[in-house]
């Protein structure tokens, strides 16, 4: 395997603080799955007692590399050095014994077990659970206190919030004696507050000598918490930096391989008539919880209204009602001058007829049928359109021709209409969903979490597409938990907390601090 030396190469080792010893060194690691080269001749050095970030887009080989270090995958070639010693990490058992712990992106917790049972799995202390339990619990409580890892040991995993589940994962690793902790996309599922909490924990771990590797594609996080950072692209490490000597722009450029515009040019134009009016909408969930309380707002042509809020404060239910997935229970909605009253015939088919398109929050659950081919997913919901038919049968050739163009225009990669959508990266799946909805030429576009789990390159493209749509006069309702996104895209922002709108502001006057306060329900405006 020949490597092409790319920019950045190994320049860095010298630029790193000459402080201490290397905790981890990976030399020439190569891993091939079938025909896909996931890691190609990767070299990586991490100093002991530091937080090292690894950034890269989805599919850049970050997770594969870490799974190799953790012993889940066997590298096809290359060597791993821990504290200067060449080691053969051929199983998780071995890596645990060597003091490596990993918090996976998808948690490795048994959902029906208690926190304690999960934390002690594999480290039970005795053949009979009861004999070991006390000692394990004492040790865990010690760790929990020492590092601020607040958990309820008696609770069942499936009942506790994701943030706590993550703390259990960290505890698990520490309990097994981890001195090196790998975290794979740890903030993807966390609220902003939980992320701050996690970072406090990570800093406290570092200060007590734990070496941390943080895998992420969020540059802001890299900048705020890491000491050093490596950028991966196409299975290779293409650059290494000391965090304080780099910038998000430089990292993004190395991740994508070209200059990326992180700022958005918002077209300035006059808004038109209101096309969506929501009046006094309230909603009760199946469990009898009032998830929406007296929501009112309107949205004009060409306007982007951002709905900010911590996940689970009623935004999802609002989207569901507006897109026709849920029945309207109380209040009224006016869509393109047509009024919908409670318990009226209102469903997603009708919503589409009224010119409402919807990019759902969860693209796997609601946006796509993952095993379907791209050409099938690209017409779902619009499949009744006669342009896909010859006489009374659907015409595959017409559909494929249409979808080939769509994929080309919206830069969905790979450029194939006959690949199942599940095989696309998150960003390309999102582009596909967005393409489908924009192509329907809507008056109103409802967008939920447009960039969740999406690469920078794709984010840039998605923002561009939204702006293009805005300048055509489409009204856009944007729901996102990413405050940056809301602030940079929206013209106007409303904040939701516990089912109510607790504040409204023009995006030009909005500050992150104010919005954050409103989101946490501390301040009514």
């Amino acid at each position, binding site marked *: 395997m020949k490597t092409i030396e790319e920019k950045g190469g190994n320049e860095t080792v010298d630029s790193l603080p000459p402080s201490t010893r290397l905790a981890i060194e990976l030399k020439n690691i190569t891993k091939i*799955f079938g025909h896909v080269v996931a890691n190609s001749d990767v070299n990586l050095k991490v100093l002991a007692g530091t937080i090292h970030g690894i950034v890269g887009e989805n599919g850049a080989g970050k997770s594969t590399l870490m799974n190799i270090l*953790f012993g*889940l*995958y066997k590298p096809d070639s290359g060597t791993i050095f821990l504290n200067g010693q060449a080691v053969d990490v051929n*199983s*998780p*058992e*071995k*890596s*645990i*014994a060597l003091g490596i712990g*990993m918090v*996976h992106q*998808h948690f*490795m*917790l*048994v*959902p*029906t*077990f208690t926190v304690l*049972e*999960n934390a*002690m*799995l*594999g*480290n*039970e202390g*005795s*053949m*009979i*659970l*009861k004999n*070991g339990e006390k000692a394990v619990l004492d040790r865990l409580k010690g760790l929990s206190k020492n590092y601020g890892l607040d958990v309820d040991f008696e609770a069942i995993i499936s009942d506790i919030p994701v943030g706590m589940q993550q703390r259990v994962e960290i505890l*698990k690793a520490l309990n*097994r004696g981890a001195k090196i902790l790998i975290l794979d996309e740890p903030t993807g599922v966390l609220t902003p507050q939980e992320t701050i909490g996690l970072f406090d924990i990570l800093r406290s771990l570092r200060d007590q000598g734990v070496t941390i590797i943080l895998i992420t594609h969020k540059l802001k996080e890299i900048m705020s918490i890491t000491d050093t950072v490596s950028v991966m692209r196409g299975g290779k490490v293409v650059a290494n930096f000391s965090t304080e000597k780099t910038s998000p722009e430089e990292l993004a450029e190395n991740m994508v391989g070209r200059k990326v515009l992180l700022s958005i040019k918002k077209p300035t134009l006059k808004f038109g008539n209101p096309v969506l009016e929501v009046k006094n909408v309230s909603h009760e969930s199946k469990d009898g919880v009032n998830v929406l309380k007296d929501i009112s707002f309107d949205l004009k042509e060409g306007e982007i209204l951002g709905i900010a809020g911590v996940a689970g404060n009623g935004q999802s239910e609002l989207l569901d009602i507006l897109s026709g997935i849920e029945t309207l229970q109380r209040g009224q909605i006016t869509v393109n001058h047509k009024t919908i009253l409670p318990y009226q015939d209102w469903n997603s088919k009708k919503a589409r007829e009224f010119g409402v398109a919807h990019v759902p929050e969860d693209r796997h659950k609601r946006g796509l049928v993952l095993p379907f081919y791209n050409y099938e997913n690209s017409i779902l919901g619009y499949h009744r359109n006669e342009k896909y038919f010859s006489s009374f049968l659907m015409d595959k050739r017409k559909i494929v021709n249409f979808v080939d163009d769509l994929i080309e225009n919206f830069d969905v990669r790979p450029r194939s209409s006959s690949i199942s959508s599940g095989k696309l990266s998150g960003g390309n799946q999102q582009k596909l969903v967005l393409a489908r909805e924009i192509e329907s030429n809507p008056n109103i576009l409802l967008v939920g979490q447009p960039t969740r789990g999406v690469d920078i390159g794709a984010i840039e493209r998605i923002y561009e597409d939204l702006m293009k749509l805005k300048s055509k006069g489409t009204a856009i309702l944007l729901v996102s938990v990413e405050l940056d996104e809301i602030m940079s895209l929206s013209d106007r922002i409303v904040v939701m907390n516990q089912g109510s709108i607790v504040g409204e502001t023009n995006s030009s006057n909005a500050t992150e601090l104010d919005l954050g306060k409103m989101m946490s329900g501390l301040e009514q405006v």
Partner: protein
Amino acid sequence: MLESFQIIISLLDSTIRIATPLIFCAMAGIFSERSGIIDIGLEGKMLLSAFVAATATFLTGSPILGLFGAILASCSASLIHGFACITNKGDQVISGLAINILASGLTITLGIALFSRGGQTPPLASEQRFMPIDFPFLDQLSFVPVLGELFVEVISGHNVLVYLSVLAVFFTYYVIFKTRFGLRLRAVGEKPEAVDTAGISVIKMRYQSILIAGMLCGLAGAYLSIAHGAGFGREMSAGKGYIALAAMIFGKWNPIPTLFACLLFGFLEALGVRLEGVELIWIGEVPVQVMQALPYVLTVVLLAGFIGKARAPGAIGVPYSKES
């Protein structure tokens, strides 16, 4: 009054006899399925081990050797199942069905080849079987009204395997919920990734679980042919493996509720036998077939409606592979 008491006593007595193989099989099922491996093959393993038990006992004259043979046969079938669906990640239902079909054909073929009795094994003498054990102090106790009689007729006077089956329930409960092995076994059936990343081999855990299941199934088979019965008859497992599976689901993969489910199914069958040809008030004589169908009808009704949220182990039926 006295007569109906007698009827109840004898019903309970047969309930226990009928439930014993169900209990062994259902506990086997719990071990296997809690580890994530569907065990449709209970029926086949039981049949195979019943045949091997009877044959080995007839040839050696020792029921102990017969019992070991039965366990060996059943464990071999478990290993085939494991090789197909743990090592090679095959479909667990298909593999289980294959074992059932194999057992059904193989026992008859071998039976005819060995003994030329149309698939049956020669009858075993009393000393070649596990015979009923009478508890001490029976004479004194039989004078105690109701309880004494209950003890003498229902609790005492079964063969050793019956008592072993009750022990098996407590053994299963203890191992699964109170030991390290059990914690890992449950984890491997719910979320094998968690076990793997804890540095424990998923494959080894699952093989161990199905081997324990194999042993328990072997006991069930031996019970049929060398304890309860006196020889092997073709298809003598007669769907008990499936009923055990139903009892396990009814008991939500928990040993104690499963025990009661097995007893309920046993009771229904005993009742069915008892009511054959009996005139019932209002209804008249119920056809035998209806009574025989009762446990199966109940299975369908219970599984469809009553138990509601029976939650199977999370990773059941899914082969574990790392690199996906």
